[in-house]
C-alpha cells in the first residue's frame, strides 16, 4: 500500500546551518511512527517543513501521493494533516471549548456573509460544531473545564487540550511535537493511552518525543536523527540495541568503554 506520508531527500538550511540534511521517511497508514534524536537534531524542523510553516530548502513531501510542496499551512491542514506544537500554542484568550471548536474549522463551511446575516444553515452548523467539540472534550476528559479560559488550565491539561484541538480537525495524519514534555509520569501514561485511542479511531500518528519509555511503548516504528541526518530506522527493539544510536545519545567518549 502507498504510504500516507512520504518525504524524499528533505533538506533545510538556516543560513549556514544545515538543520535537516537529505532525510527521507515514510509513514504507513494507521501506524504510530516516532522521530527521536538529541536536542537540535532537526525534528521540529521536519514538522515545520511538512506542515508548510517553514518550507524545506530541498526535497519533496507527498501526502497520499499528492505533492504538498508550495501549499500554505492552512491548505495542508485542510488536506488532513494536523499538529501540536513543542511550546504549547493554545488560543489563550478563548475558552477550552472554543479552542476545540476552532479545530472544526477545516471541516465546516459557513462564511462571513452567512454569519453576518445569521442564516439558518450557519446556525445549524454552529450547533453541530459545538456538539462535536463537546464530545471530543468528553473523550479526552476535559468536559468539566469546557468554559474555562485555555490559559487557566494546568499545564498537563493544556497539552491534552492541544491534542484534542488538533484531533478535532479529523486529521488523517496527526503530528505531535513532544506531547509529553513537562508532564509527570502519571500524566504521560494518560496521554499515551489517549494517543493510542485516537489511533484506534483511524488516525495515523507521527510523534516527536524525548520520553523514551513512552516512545518505546506506543510506537510501531522509530526514526533516529542526529545533526539533521537520519542515522537509524526500525522497530523499537532494534533501535534500543543500535550502536549508532547509543553513541549519538551518549556521546563519542562512551565508545571506548
Amino acid at each position: 500500500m502507498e504510504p500516507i506520508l512520504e518525504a524524499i531527500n528533505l533538506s533545510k538550511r538556516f543560513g549556514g546551518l544545515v538543520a535537516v540534511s537529505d532525510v527521507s521517511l515514510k509513514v504507513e497508514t494507521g501506524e504510530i511512527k516516532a522521530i527521536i534524536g538529541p536536542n537540535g537534531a532537526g525534528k521540529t524542523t521536519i514538522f515545520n517543513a511538512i506542515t508548510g510553516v517553514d518550507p524545506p530548502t530541498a526535497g519533496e513531501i507527498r501526502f497520499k501521493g499528492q505533492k504538498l510542496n508550495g501549499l500554505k499551512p492552512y491548505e495542508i491542514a485542510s488536506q488532513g494533516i494536523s499538529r501540536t506544537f513543542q511550546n504549547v500554542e493554545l488560543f489563550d484568550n478563548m475558552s477550552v471549548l472554543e479552542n476545540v471548536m476552532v479545530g472544526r474549522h477545516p471541516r465546516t463551511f459557513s462564511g462571513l456573509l452567512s454569519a453576518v446575516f445569521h442564516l439558518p444553515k450557519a446556525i445549524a452548523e454552529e450547533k453541530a460544531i459545538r456538539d462535536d467539540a463537546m464530545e471530543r472534550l468528553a473523550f479526552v476528559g476535559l468536559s468539566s473545564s469546557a468554559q474555562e479560559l485555555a490559559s487557566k488550565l494546568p499545564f498537563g491539561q493544556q497539552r491534552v487540550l492541544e491534542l484534542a484541538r488538533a484531533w478535532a480537525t479529523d486529521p488523517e495524519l496527526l503530528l505531535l511535537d513532544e506531547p509529553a514534555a513537562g508532564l509527570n509520569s502519571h500524566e504521560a501514561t494518560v496521554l499515551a493511552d489517549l494517543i493510542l485511542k485516537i489511533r484506534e479511531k483511524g488516525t495515523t500518528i507521527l510523534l516527536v518525543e524525548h520520553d523514551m519509555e513512552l516512545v518505546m511503548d506506543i510506537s510501531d516504528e522509530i526514526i533516529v536523527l542526529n545533526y539533521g541526518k537520519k542515522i537509524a530506522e526500525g522497530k523499537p527493539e532494534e533501535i534500543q540495541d543500535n550502536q549508532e544510536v547509543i553513541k549519538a545519545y551518549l556521546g563519542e567518549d562512551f565508545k571506548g568503554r
Partner: protein
Amino acid sequence: MLVLVALPMVMRNPYYLGIMVFMGIYSLITIGLSLLMGYAGQISLGHAAFFATGAYTSGILTTKAHLSPLPAFLAAIVLTACIAFLIGIPTLRLKGHYLAMATLGFGQIVYVALNASVDFTGGPSGFGEIPRIALGNLVVESQLARYCLVWALVVIVLLFSLNLIHSRVGRALRSIHSSELAANAMGVNTSKYKIQVFVLSAIYASIAGSLYAHFVTFISPGSFDLEFSILLVTMVVVGGMANVWGALLGTVLLTLLPEFLRGFKDYDILIYGSTLLLIMIFMPEGLFGLVKKLRSVRGRM
C-alpha cells in the same frame, strides 16, 4: 435599545441631539475597528481614509454627478470595499509596528491626495452644497430625523457584528489574534479572514462617511486627518477593544468628554493623550474590562 428610543423623547434640545448624531457616526466606525483590532488583532491607524472615501464619494457623486444619495451611498461602499481590498492584501501581510506604520502611511497618502487634487475634491478648502438625504419626499433634515437614521444603522451594524462574533468566522478571527501559527495549523486561512474583516470595517467607515457628508453638507480634508484616525483608535482602546460593547462605550465617553470640557476647547488633544496613556498603563483592557472584572469579583462574593 430602550435607551436609544427613549432618549430623543426626553431630550428635545437639537444641540444635544446633534451630539448624539455624531456619536452614532463615530460608533459605526469604531464597531468595525473593534472587530479589526480587538477581535482579529490587526491595528489600523488609517481608518480616517475609509471614512473620507465614503464622504467624498457620496459628496462628489451627488453634487457633481447629480446622483441621488442612495445610489451614491452604495457606490461609496463598493469603492471603499475595493480600495480596502487592494490595500489590505499587501498591508495585512505585515505585523505589529510595520502594520501600524503602513496603515498610518496609507491614511496620510489619502489625506495628501484630498488636499492636492483640487479639481476633484476642492483641495484644502473642501466643497459644500451636498444635498440632504431624502427618502421619497421625506427629507432627513431635522436633528431628530438624523438621529433616527444614524442610530437605526448603528443598531443594524451592531447586530451584524454580534452575529459575526458568535460565529465560525468570528472564532477564526479571535484565533488569529491569539496565535496566527496555531490558527493556520487548524486550517484557518488567516490572510483571507484578515482581509475580510478589514474590508468589512472599511465598509462601516464608508457608511459613516456618507452619512457625515449628507448631514454636514460640507466636507474638507481637515475632518479626515491622522488625528481623527487616532481618535478612533483611542475610542476603541479606552472602552476596551476586546469587545464591541467596549468600543461603543469608549465612543460614547470620548464624544461626550469635550462637551464637559467646553472651557478647554483647544486642549482636548491633551486630554485625549493623557486618557489614552492612563488607560493603557493602568487598565489595558479598557473600561469595559474593568466593568467585567468588577462583575466577576462581585459574582465570587
